[in-house]
């Protein structure tokens, strides 16, 4: 009967997915499905290397993130076995493990020579119920870029806290250059990648005590309210026009066009803003940690890795591919070919060419990134199977408050109630 339901799901989404081809693995082929990011694009370009080294043909499919979600749901619920290695964001891994979509790979990972070279924090993020479920290849973190010339002219220092940021923003904001832009569109990977940096700085939290296992929603607190008011004030009063619908692309464009002084963003976007090849204001732009608050500094973190679907037909080949994909050699090639600095295979950072490349972008870049990663907490966004649903619900309420559809008090109250509903409390 379960099989029947799975078949029904596959059938139900079949029409939508009729355009995607289904390749059934041959004996010496691995089918890899990932969504577009610098690393995945770089990896796809190296597919021939893998075949030359191992004799195994790698079909690396890099697709859009929205299509990805549908594609894997279809494949995993239908147990079609057409994916051998899958892009596994840490934010999804709990949900996938709960749904029995992934194969535990503790033994396979233990056998990999590269294991000791991979950063421990990101590696542990994929440990659930004592098993390893994926191998990380990147850990993006939250960074802040700022226009040195604008701060200098106004005679102000780089803000260390969000409180400082409010004061600085008030001084530098004008019609031509807004003070700051951050992601605002609703979604667990959009405003909920950025907002928790403000929330955690003020001591706000998602649950009563996440680390002790008390998952009573606690987002409706005075701390989170204060943080939300700061976030709203920054974007509504000191942000560019239309900031309430900004996603990372709009933040990036605004900074590249010199329309904002501060951007708080993920590593990839932040790097592009200090890269002279990508932004005409790069030489005037500095990079540092995102601001903190009374409860400290909590840069965002997003880990991405590679996992093996439970339905994969030939897990040994899959493991072989993953080992190659996260090896120091492959990672170094990608770090050099793509804007990819947030690798989790540590020895890549020792490569002279890699150091040269990223120091040229900005001398502080690699050091600031390492410091931010060091400060970031693994459960910045709670590692729960329900997180995508929770993040969506909270994000929608935060966005509604930001755009004046409801008061911040009501938004947090609604968010907490919806969290309870989702968790069945």
């Amino acid at each position, binding site marked *: 009967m379960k099989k029947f339901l799975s078949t029904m799901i596959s059938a*139900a989404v079949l029409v939508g997915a009729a355009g995607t081809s289904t390749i059934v693995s041959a004996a010496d082929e691995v089918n890899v499905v990932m969504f577009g990011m610098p690393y995945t694009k770089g990896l796809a370009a190296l597919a021939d290397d893998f075949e030359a080294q191992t004799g195994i043909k790698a079909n690396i499919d890099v697709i859009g993130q929205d299509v990805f979600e549908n594609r894997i749901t279809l494949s995993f619920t239908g147990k079609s076995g057409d994916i051998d290695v899958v892009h596994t964001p840490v934010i999804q891994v709990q949900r996938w493990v709960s749904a029995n979509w992934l194969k535990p790979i503790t033994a396979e990972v233990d056998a990999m020579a590269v294991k000791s070279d991979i950063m421990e924090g990101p590696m542990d993020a994929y440990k659930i119920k004592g098993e390893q479920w994926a191998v990380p290849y990147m850990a993006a973190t939250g960074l802040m870029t700022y226009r040195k010339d604008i701060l200098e002219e106004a005679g102000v220092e780089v803000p260390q806290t969000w409180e400082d940021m409010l004061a600085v923003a008030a001084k530098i904001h004008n019609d031509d250059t807004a003070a700051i832009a951050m992601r605002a569109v609703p979604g667990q990977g959009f405003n909920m990648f950025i907002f928790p940096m403000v929330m955690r700085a003020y001591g706000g939290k998602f649950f009563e005590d996440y680390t002790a296992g008390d998952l009573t929603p606690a987002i409706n607190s005075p701390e989170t309210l204060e943080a939300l008011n700061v976030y709203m004030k920054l974007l509504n009063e000191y942000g560019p026009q239309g900031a*309430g*619908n900004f996603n990372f692309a709009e933040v990036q464009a605004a900074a590249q066009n010199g329309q904002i002084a501060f951007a708080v963003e993920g590593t990839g976007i932040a790097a592009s803003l200090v890269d002279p090849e990508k932004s005409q204001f790069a030489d005037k732009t500095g990079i540092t940690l995102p601001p903190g608050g009374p409860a400290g500094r909590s840069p965002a973190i997003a880990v991405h890795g590679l996992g093996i679907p439970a339905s994969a037909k030939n897990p040994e080949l899959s493991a072989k591919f993953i080992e190659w994909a996260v090896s120091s050699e492959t990672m170094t090639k990608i770090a050099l070919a793509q804007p990819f600095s947030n690798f989790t295979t540590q020895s890549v950072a020792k490569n002279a060419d890699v150091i040269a490349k990223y120091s040229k972008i900005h001398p502080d870049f690699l050091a600031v990134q390492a410091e931010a990663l060091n400060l970031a907490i693994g459960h910045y966004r709670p590692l729960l199977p329900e997180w995508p649903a929770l993040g969506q619900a909270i994000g929608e309420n935060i966005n509604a408050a930001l755009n004046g559809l409801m008061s911040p008090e009501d938004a947090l109250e609604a968010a907490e109630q919806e969290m309870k509903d989702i968790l069945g409390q």
Partner: protein
Amino acid sequence: MTAKSTKQVSATADLERGYRNMVLPAVLAVGIFAIVPLAGMLALSVSDYHLLRGTNWEFGFKNFVRLVSDKRLMGSVYAMAVLSFFGVTAQVLIGAAIAVGLSKIVGRWRLGRVLFLLPYAVPHVAVALIWLSLFTPTLSPINAFFDLFGVTVPSFLTTQNGALFAIVLADTWTNFPFAMLIILAALQGISPDLEEAAALDGATRIQTFFYVTLPLLIPAFLLVTLFRFIDSLKHFPMIFVMTKGGPGRSTQATNYYGYIQTFQNSNVAYGAAIAVTLFIVAAIISFYVAKLNQRVTS
């Protein structure tokens, strides 16, 4: 019955059998690619399947009962109704106006028709990206232009009505050519004799249009409205790219809400119930429009 006519009958039967065989692959394709997934969706909608919690094998109409009391669903129906009503109305009116204009153009300039078809050929995600940048004040050339005169164009995507308007506009831009095409074809099917006859009877051009041409176009209007309406229930790419359902939840049309329930919240069964309800609504409306069409044509 004479031998000759029997032969004729059997020849017609043969011919009909031949045609039936020709239709068979299409029937099979529809059966496999439409009926089977629909049946699957129906089965899911009465189940309790949840991606994380699995299923307890309880079947019933719980999901449909929940639909009635779901405030978010009601909000999504409002967004969908606004998007569909204004979008379809604008597409049909603009499409009709351009079709009437184009039908009067003869000679070389007829090629200009192709120009109006271009928006229809652009993929929806690309259309959405174009309009997203036009509606993002920091990127939009429109805002930059008015800035020159010190005029600030309001930000549309951060208000409920503004965001709905932006999506209607993007949807209209890409879909009016479809309405135009169908109405143009219908216009060309109207014999010029009728207009000439009306002119001979002393009717003005405007009278001719309203009393002769327009009534003859009603079947085409019904057809194009129906097609566009059914399609408009499936709003997704514009919302996904332009607003992500925001601000807040104001542009979460029902289809988008179903996506969130299914893929973000893992409520597969509930998402299926939303989809089934949408399908039933579309089916009922299609049925009545088809009947209306029959009445008009007969």
